[in-house]
């Protein structure tokens, strides 16, 4: 007999997942959507979706990869709703305004803040791949699963994204010499 509602086991698992990956997923989404409140809502949506679909998790990938895949889809969906026309036409959604670091973030030194700002200026596909590969340290194969891309696309996009990021940092006053 199937019953909805969830068992204490499922809720325990959800709490464990949140404690282990909640912050990482929240900051991934924050770097993508650049609005703390929105990031919090989308993180909540990610975990509740994971809770509802625990049984569909087939352990083909790690829990972390699975949760980030959900977070990625939730974020993508958010952009789709926010910019339906650009999305439909396949245009990128660049918003060049800089959003200050939210008060909910503990603290950040000057150099990392410059990097945070520069990442925000990149187009979403570049942001996705840089955050997953470089900040969250997913492998190329795991990133490909999360983004539903081929591994070669991950590699190629990362290469381009890093060049673009370097340009953004130079524009922001970080010298080429420092970046080497």
């Amino acid at each position: 007999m199937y019953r909805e509602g969830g068992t204490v086991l499922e809720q325990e698992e959800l709490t464990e997942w949140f404690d282990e990956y909640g912050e990482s997923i929240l900051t991934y989404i924050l770097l993508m959507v650049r609005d703390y409140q929105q990031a919090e809502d989308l993180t909540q949506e990610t975990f509740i979706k994971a809770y509802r679909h625990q049984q569909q998790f087939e352990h083909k990938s790690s829990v972390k990869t699975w949760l980030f895949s959900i977070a990625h889809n939730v974020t993508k969906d958010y952009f789709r709703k926010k910019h339906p026309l650009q999305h439909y036409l396949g245009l990128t959604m660049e918003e060049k305004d800089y959003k200050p670091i939210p008060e909910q973030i503990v603290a950040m030194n000057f150099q990392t803040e410059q990097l945070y700002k520069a990442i925000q200026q990149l187009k979403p596909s570049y942001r996705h791949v840089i955050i997953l590969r470089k900040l969250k340290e997913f492998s190329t194969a795991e990133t490909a699963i999360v983004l539903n891309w081929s591994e070669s696309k991950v590699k190629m996009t990362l290469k381009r994204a890093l060049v673009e990021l370097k340009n953004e940092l130079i524009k922001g006053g970080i010298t080429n010499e420092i970046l080497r």
Partner: protein
Amino acid sequence: MKFLDEQFRELEEELKITDKSKDQLRSKILKGTYKNKKRHLKYYGWVAVACMLFIITSPFYSTTMASIVAKVLPISITPNFSDGQYNPDLTSQLFELVEKEGYTVNSVGITPAPYTIEISLILKDSTLKRATDELEPKITNYLYENGYDEYELKVSEATVPDGQRNEKDSLYEDSPYDNVREIVKDVFASYGYAKEADYELAGLKHTWFSYILTIDMPDHIKESTEIIADIEKEIQSQNLDIKDIEVNTFNFEHRQQDNRWGYIASDIYNAMAGKSTYQLTGVSYKVSKGHSYVSIKTDLDKPPSEKIIEEIELAIQEYLALPETKEQIQNDNYTIQLLLKNEKPFVKITN
């Protein structure tokens, strides 16, 4: 790019959320799952009666009788579902209790090890201090009366009013999920698979432009091709935004067994958690080669007294003998164990 790699690591390390914000988010998520649960709890009246009966009949609550039972706390394992209805668990009971005191509850959540009860309130005309002062004695008294004596209680104020975010709570807002879920259920039922249709067989995957419907197909269904064709037709007639259907087969019996034992494991754990005699730290279960294993973990270094072990065994046997539990177990072979801290079993019940 060496410099950049270090910078990335630093940024990841510095991207830390304040504890307060983390707690708020955890509470919101728990609230989300609680709401999901609460929708299915329809009958509450009997709970008061059951609790009263428990208080009256249990020797633990009679000062004279208490000396006779010599501190062995009686366990009563209640099936979470009996007589066609859900039996409210502790979160639901506390939710009701606090609301009866005139407060608006944002969420009630319980996390294990240490057993922590978190109650988040939406305060209008009261301060958190006043609410805590008023509620804490009532909650602790209720918990004491129900045998809970080892827990942490956290009462907090929800920062976001409930109503503001209701729309966001809808997971598939603007998506065709509800419609496809109904279609899938109806089509399966029309082929005589109503029992299978009770499981959540439909899922949605997002793509940039549309959705992909995923269907979990029980592997004993022979008419799977016809069922998918019918679902496809119905989706087209309703003009839903679904571009493709993906079908994954699974063994229905295995999933059913897994599901049933999830509830059994929870029932046993719930009856003993938060009570110092048993020192529970967690629960796990698995179904392997048709055999179900439930492991209740404790923080005990050595086995408790024989009296306590007897009490646990008796409570579990009584629970297993209930008609509703028998219905859950069916013909499954099972092993239920309580484990010491070093994972050695000190109670083992098997059939």
